[in-house]
């Protein structure tokens, strides 16, 4: 399994995500700089990490969405490649149109940073196959702009096509329908605000994030 982790100026979860990919996939991921125009050959999954890309200027993820490498990530996704966007990475995926909707300022204005329970909504994806539908997992969140918004048509499609991957068990940021993570139409792109890479080691507050990375590895192994 070969992963690539995209690094923007201001990314700060890139190393954690690389550690998680390596822990489960056995290989050191390729760290890919935002100015690169293409992904290295033979990449199985691209991780777009959390952080404050370009200082969150204009809107979170807006500048990173225009980076040369983001175009390459969009092409990779369009060809069926797997992409995992976490937190600021999720914002980059919505700003670039790879995933629908937008992430707005938290309804309570405050930056929310704590482990939160998530409802596992679907197991029909390469990211959630090892989880149990209807179960709860605890994953940390750390964001100021995680309030998911989509128009009614998009929201209905996401629900109708079983593309909501995770919901907050209780409302923490005003997200429509308590959405914490969504899948692309082909189910091979996952964007989520919570940080599964911060919940994989016994020294973390929990290890519930491990099932997401193990799901990714099993799906790649059987592909």
């Amino acid at each position, binding site marked *: 399994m070969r992963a690539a982790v995209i690094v923007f100026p201001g990314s700060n979860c890139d190393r954690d995500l690389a550690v998680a990919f390596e822990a489960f996939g056995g290989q050191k991921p390729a760290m890919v700089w935002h100015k690169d125009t293409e992904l290295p050959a033979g990449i199985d999954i691209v991780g777009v990490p959390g952080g404050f890309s370009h200082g969150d200027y*204009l*809107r979170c993820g*807006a500048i990173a969405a*225009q980076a040369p490498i983001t175009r390459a990530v969009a092409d990779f996704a369009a060809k069926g490649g797997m992409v995992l966007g976490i937190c600021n990475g999720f914002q980059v995926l919505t700003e670039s149109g790879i995933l629908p909707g937008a992430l*707005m300022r938290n*309804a309570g204005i405050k930056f929310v940073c704590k482990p939160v329970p998530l409802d596992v909504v679907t197991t029909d994806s390469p990211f959630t196959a090892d989880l149990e539908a209807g179960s709860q997992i605890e994953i940390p969140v750390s964001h100021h702009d995680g*309030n998911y918004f*989509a128009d009614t048509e998009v929201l209905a499609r996401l629900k109708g096509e079983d593309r909501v991957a995770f919901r907050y068990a209780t409302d923490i940021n*005003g997200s429509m329908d308590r959405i914490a993570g969504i899948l692309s139409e082909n189910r091979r792109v996952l964007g989520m605000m919570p940080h599964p890479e911060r919940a994989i080691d016994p020294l973390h507050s929990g290890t519930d994030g491990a099932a997401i990375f193990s799901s990714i590895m099993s799906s790649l192994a059987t592909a």
Partner: protein
Amino acid sequence: MKATVHVMLKQGVLDPQGEAVRHALGTLGFDGVEGVRQGKIIELDLTGEDRDAAHDQVTRMCEKLLANTVIESYRIEIA
């Protein structure tokens, strides 16, 4: 030529920051403020002379980068 772009959250999209400002104004004793919406203004200095062309160009900038049209609307002034 100067272009000014006003970017606001669309009507119907909750503006928590505007709400917080409204609340703070009430705390300060300013009565009768029913609603506050907060947006941003972006000023662009343009070298061209053609106003229509500038308007077209800035519209494309808004659609591509300056506004997120999922949640925001924009208005362009050319002066």
